């Protein structure tokens, strides 16, 4: 920007403003007298609950995990025993049918069909 350099030479680059006498010297003192005091932040006192909280959370997590495992395995166990009962009953029915079939002779069967 050659033209701008020319402008800088002609117009200069010093801001054409002034301030009241001793303005900056007095400013700091004036400014500091206006600033509010910082409220002292009370130091946090660790209560028993605050200190025990991590341990309690950990214990609660273990309890939940233990309960979940116990509940899931119990359901699995109950499911297996119910299935076993069903199988046994089916097998019992098969045995009964087989023994019944063995007691029916050919004559009885013809008699039954002719009725």
């Amino acid at each position, binding site marked *: *920007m050659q*033209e*701008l350099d020319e*402008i*800088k030479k*002609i*117009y*200069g*680059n*010093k*801001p*054409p*403003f*002034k*301030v*009241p006498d001793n303005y*900056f010297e007095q*400013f*700091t003192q004036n*400014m*500091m007298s*206006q*600033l*509010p005091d*910082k409220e*002292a*932040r009370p130091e946090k006192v660790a209560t028993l609950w605050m200190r025990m909280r991590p341990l309690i959370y950990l214990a609660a997590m273990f309890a939940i995990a233990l309960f979940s495992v116990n509940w899931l395995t119990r359901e699995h166990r109950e499911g297996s025993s119910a299935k076993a009962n069903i199988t046994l009953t089916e097998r019992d029915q098969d045995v009964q049918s087989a023994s019944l079939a063995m007691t029916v002779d050919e004559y009885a069967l013809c008699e039954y069909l002719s009725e």
Partner: protein
Amino acid sequence: MENKEQEIIRKLQSPQTMRQAFSEVVALYSEKLYWQIRKMVISHDDSNDVLQNTFIKAWNNIEYFRGDAKLSTWLFRIAINESITFLNKQNQHATVPIDDEDAYLINKLESDTWFDGDELQLKLQKAILRLPEKQRIVFNMRYFDELKYEEISEILGTSVGALKASYHHAAKKIVDFLSIED
């Protein structure tokens, strides 16, 4: 300067030395911030108000200054935001509707008893005041303060490329305006 700033930051983090350290901050940066604000809001009285608001805001939020950016950058950022907020408020509360901000600021410039320039400088200031707000900020930082683009980028949070483009447009408008006036 860097070491001085580090030392102040360290003292600002302790409640016992915070107030003393902040008075050092005010002493160290008030003049630089003042001139930055003055170039934006023009009048001395308004600049004084904005500068005070800048330090009050910095004081109220000093706990949140983590030292990620330089203290001076953080303060400049607050000062620029405060200046923009101030100008927007002035526009909203004007008794006579202000059609354009530049006319309002030129009026302020001409009536300011603390203006210390000659005819040429008044003409240059008028040309600068005709620029859009963002271009005016960038132009002032480059032309008067001779800040590097990287420094401006940190303060304004704008990319160096965008700043270069902004300064280029601003400079062209200034040159055009002054050529027409001549």
